[in-house]
Each structure stands twice: as C-alpha cells, then as structure tokens.
C-alpha cells in the first residue's frame, strides 16, 4: 500500500485538477449560452436563404450558370470548421476523422477554421490552402463573407472543382454531429431535402430583375456565406457544449477519485496507528 504522504500528495493534485475542470465547465456553460442564442438568431436568415435558392433552382430547369456547372479539373476544396483548443471531448476529432475517411489527401485542399482540425489534417498529409483560425472565437458574418470570397475566387480560377463545408451541427448540449455539406456546384438534388419541401406550395412564376444570371451571381455567394456563417455558429455552440460535457465528466471522475483516495488515506492512517500501537505494546512487553 502506498504511503500516507504519497496518497495525500496525489489527492491534493487531483483536487487541483478538479478545480480547473470545474472552472472550465462553468466557462463553457456561459459561452454555450451565448453561442446558442447566436446560433438561434442566425437561423431565420439561413432558412429563408435556403428556401429562396431551392425554389429558384426548382423552377429554373435549364440555367447554365458557372456556379451550377462542375469544374472539370481542380481539387476538392473543403472548409473544415473545428476549434482552436482541445479538451472538448471528441469534438475536434470527429470532424477531422470524417474528412480523413471521406477524402483523398492528394486531391483535396483544406481551408481551415480552427487550429485543431488544421493540425490533425496536416499530420495526415493534407494540404492546407487557407487558414482562418483566428476568427473562431467570435465569428462574424463578415468573416464568413471573407472566407466565401477566397473560396469562390479559387473556384472561378479553376483551382477547385467542388466546394464542401464540414461543421458540427448542434442538436442539444450533449448531441452534436459533424455534417458535410456540398456548396458548389449547386444542384437541385443536393439541395432539396424532404424537410424543406413542405413549404413549396403552388407559387406563381418568379420574375428576376435584372435577369436570372445576375440574380444568381448575387445570391449564390450570399447563400454560401450564410451556410458558412450558420456552420460557424453551430460549431461554436457544439464546441462549448462538448467541452461542457467533457469537463463535467472529468470533474465527476476527479471527485470519485478524491473520495477513493480519501478512503485509502484513512485506511493507511489507521494502519499506521495500529502498527505504532503494536510496536509500543511489544516494546513495553520486552522491557518487563
């Protein structure tokens, strides 16, 4: 059995850790509440954007727009949204794992938001084309628009053949899953998921001013920005949710360990006292 001193030291160390994890949990909880409110607030914009664009594509059978055509050559561009910091359970890992299993490193260019995902993918031999990690703490719509511009420029120059985004969807505090979405080329099949279809009542024929092409030119980048912005918001909320859950279980594990060590310590102390008593008694017997 370990000595009393050792147990005491270990217990103190774990107590310190528990204090830290508890503090981190509290911080994550507060951040989560903020992030969640923001994610909620960004939803209407995204939803309406999505409806508009899918109803536009629905009706325009034969638009031959540059954002709807597939670039023949070029690599696949993926925007990978993770966190800058670890200690958030499987949050960062789940995203990078999905990228690694779904894409070939030689045909892929990574655009990263979040150091953790970037580093994991670099390690696996992926090429990182752009890094926007500094924005992840507090993403603004402007940041999403800037990322969109960089990626669209690369798409138009033929460097990219397709654009994907992967982010973590925030269902609730405990459940969040990585989601991979195809942004470009846009096609009806990718867009029209059953959940959005219900809204498609008989709508009158839409007029586009000045014309379809120019409206698409203006709307598609905005659509992409809004998806990226929504993804950033969801990811930030998920990161804090994941961290909160992870730190919560770390704290309760630490507490369990502290209890166990307390018991061990008391036992060791009791043992030491008993031994001392036995020794005294034995000593006294020897003198007699």
């Amino acid at each position: 059995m370990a000595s009393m001193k050792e147990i005491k030291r270990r217990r103190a160390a774990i107590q310190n850790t528990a204090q830290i994890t508890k503090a981190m949990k509290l911080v994550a909880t507060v951040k989560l509440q903020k992030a969640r409110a923001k994610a909620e607030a960004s939803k209407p914009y995204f939803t309406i954007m999505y409806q508009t664009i899918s109803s536009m594509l629905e009706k325009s059978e034969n638009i031959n727009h540059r954002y709807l055509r597939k670039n023949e050559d070029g690599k696949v561009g993926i925007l990978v949204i993770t966190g800058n910091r670890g200690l958030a359970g499987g949050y960062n890992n789940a995203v990078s794992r999905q990228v690694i299993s779904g894409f070939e490193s030689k045909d892929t260019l990574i655009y990263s938001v979040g150091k953790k995902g970037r580093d994991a993918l670099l390690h696996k031999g992926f090429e990182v084309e752009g890094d926007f990690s500094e924005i992840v703490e507090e993403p603004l719509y402007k940041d999403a628009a800037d990322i969109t511009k960089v990626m669209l420029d690369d798409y138009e120059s033929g460097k990219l053949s397709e654009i994907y985004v992967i982010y973590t969807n925030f269902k609730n505090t405990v459940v969040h899953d990585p989601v991979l979405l195809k942004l470009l080329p846009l096609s009806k099949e990718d867009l029209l998921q059953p959940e959005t279809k219900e809204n498609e009542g008989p709508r009158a024929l839409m007029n586009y001013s000045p014309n379809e092409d120019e409206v698409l030119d203006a709307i598609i980048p905005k659509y992409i920005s809004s998806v990226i912005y929504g993804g950033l918001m969801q990811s930030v909320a998920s990161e804090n949710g994941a961290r909160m859950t992870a730190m919560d279980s770390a704290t309760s594990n630490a507490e369990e360990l502290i209890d166990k060590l307390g018991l061990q310590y008391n036992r060791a102390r009791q043992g030491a006292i008993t031994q001392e008593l036995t020794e005294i008694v034995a000593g006294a017997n020897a003198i007699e």
Partner: protein
Amino acid sequence: MDKFALKIICPDHIFYEGDATMVEFTTTEGNVGIFAKHIPMVSVVAPGKLTIHCEDGSEKTCALHSGFAEVLQDSVTIMADSCEYSDRIDITRAKEAKERAQKRLSEREGVDIARAEMALRRALVRLDVAGHK
C-alpha cells in the same frame, strides 16, 4: 390601402417584421417602391436608403447595404447583409470611413479598389440616410 407583410432579415437577427403599405429601396436597376399585390420578383439590392411606410402613415428610414429582396403577392422579404435605422447611425464614424475610403481611392496603388469603392458607397449611404432624418 392594402398592406403586406414585410420582413427584413440580417444574418444575425431579424431586423424588422411587421405590416407595411409600401417599401422603397434601391436595386441594381434603380429605386423601386413596392405596394401590396406586386408581381412575384426577386431583385438584387444596391446600397441605398430603405423607407418603410407603415399602416398608420408613419415612415421609418434605414440604411440598407447589399442583399436581395423577394417580393411575393402579399409579402416582401429583404435579406440584408446589414441594415440600420437612420437614428442609430454613427455620423462621425461614417464620415471617418468616407475620408478613409476617399484617401485610399486617391492613392490608387496597392489598394483593393473595389473594396474601397464599396466602403465609400456604404459611408455615403449612411451619411445620406442620417441627413434625411
């Protein structure tokens, strides 16, 4: 007068939601004023003044910077990158932005002209709207 449901949505919040009798704004094609029962239309918004005519005859003026508008029979939805009420505009900041953009444009070298021009337009719209109060 007939009214319609007007919604102005920014990426991070709903800016305005309510009934209106007419809404005026600038598109890439010029200024438009939309009443109820307009034909369905999607148009691209250019930076400019947005005026909401409410049912009770009052008007609200805002600065609207880029986005697009979806007009349906009984509703108008404006998806705005950013939008602000005329009385909330920080005039000194807009003036500074205007001067900064003008300076950049006059230097002409090593600057993103398109970006500076957009910044100048935004600043001018802000000043214009704030002055029209």
